[in-house]
């Protein structure tokens, strides 16, 4: 019984919970705000890039591929530190939350572009030809015929990737963004108790379990048909 009460005292200390709950909640709000901004900006920018790529202008597409590859190959934390410490040197001062948002949105855009592009490529050529022969313009074909079918295919991989990238909001701790993990580690060092870390972990689980379960559902609902 001794051990059990020590465990509760260390990880579920009621006084610490009461004291630091407001701080953790503030972190939850910041995390949700940044995550939402990352998802919206990243997916829209990724979709825009995929649409531009569909025009098949060689020089433009080469640039898009380089951007996409670099942002898929580099660890997000490397990009965050690079942007955070480097931009001030050339006279651009961004607040740390903006750095976090910018980097994660670009990373998500890179992955989203690849997924949308794979979706566009998976639509058979006959669909393009049939649509064009009815008199639809190139953009009209893309908007009304190809994208609606392509986006359906992209739902499961895009959901999973989006979840993985929004979880990276926790990296904001490293540059001092006041999100959940940052609030939790600060509270932990003030209180000398592990309870705030447990609260932070629980907050993340409450936030992300529903999306992970949703992702699992979408995966079976819209499964890629692989032959």
């Amino acid at each position, binding site marked *: 019984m001794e051990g059990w009460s020590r465990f509760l005292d260390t990880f579920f200390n009621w006084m610490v919970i009461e004291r630091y709950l407001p701080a953790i909640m503030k972190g939850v709000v910041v995390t949700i705000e940044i995550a939402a901004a990352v998802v919206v900006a990243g997916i829209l920018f990724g979709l825009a890039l995929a649409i531009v790529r569909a025009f098949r202008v060689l020089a433009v597409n080469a640039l898009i591929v380089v951007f996409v590859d670099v942002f898929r190959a580099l660890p997000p934390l490397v990009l965050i530190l690079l942007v955070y410490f480097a931009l001030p040197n050339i006279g651009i001062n961004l607040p740390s939350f903006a750095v976090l948002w910018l980097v994660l949105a670009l990373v998500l855009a890179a992955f989203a572009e690849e997924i949308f592009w794979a979706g566009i490529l998976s639509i058979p050529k006959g669909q393009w030809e049939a649509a064009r022969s009815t008199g639809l313009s190139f953009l009209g074909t893309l908007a009304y015929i190809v994208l609606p079918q392509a986006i359906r295919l992209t739902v499961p991989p895009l959901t999973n990737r989006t979840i993985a990238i929004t979880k990276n909001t*926790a990296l904001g701790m490293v540059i001092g963004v006041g999100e959940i993990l940052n609030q939790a580690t600060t509270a*932990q060092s003030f209180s000398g108790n592990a309870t705030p870390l447990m609260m932070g*972990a629980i907050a993340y*689980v409450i936030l*992300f379990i529903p999306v992970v379960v949703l992702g699992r559902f979408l995966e079976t609902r819209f499964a890629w048909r692989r032959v």
Partner: protein
Amino acid sequence: MEAIRQQFFNLAIMEQAFPLILAGLKQTIIICLIVIPLGLAGGLAFALSSLSRFRTVRWTAIAGIDFFRAIPPLVLLIFIYAGLPFAGFRPSPMTAVAIAFFLNTSSYYGEIYRAGIESVGLGQWDAARSTGLRGYQTLIYVVLPQAVRNVLPDLVSNTVEVVKLTSIASVVALPELLYSADMARSVTFNSSPIVLAAAIYLAMLWPVVRLISRLERRIAT
């Protein structure tokens, strides 16, 4: 322009930082050599349990996979590194990294294996069993080879994610590639070491990222 060159592509500083960064690269490779095999093995265990005949085993495995996919790896790492000492277990940075990344990556690998195993038709099981193969032999010789082939792009892509993940070990002061580069940055007040580290990550991962794009496209069409 000169300021940018001085700040980001300062060869003198890169040369100075190079031995430190090389030592960091060695640590990064060591972490990968520990975490990737552990994750691949743990993932297989997760996947097989999540397809188990017994409901309790199945649900526990699925709950575990979802839990570790929901929690950001950095949160897990800090919880293990900074939280567990309060309970009397004081892991070294390497141990903390190995435990945290093992839990995280095996749940991701687990989902991929599961999708792969499910993609192999039930008829394959029946046919293999009817030739006299045992259950585990069917799994090893018939089902797994096909399953792995079907999800190979996802397995490779997740491995790239694991290599990228190792960079967050810098937060618990494990002197891997990013940590060494950031050390050099804070000593020299110059961003070139981080640019050098980024170039090394790119050199390691870009070819693999290209390969994934090609593998994925071949399967998509």
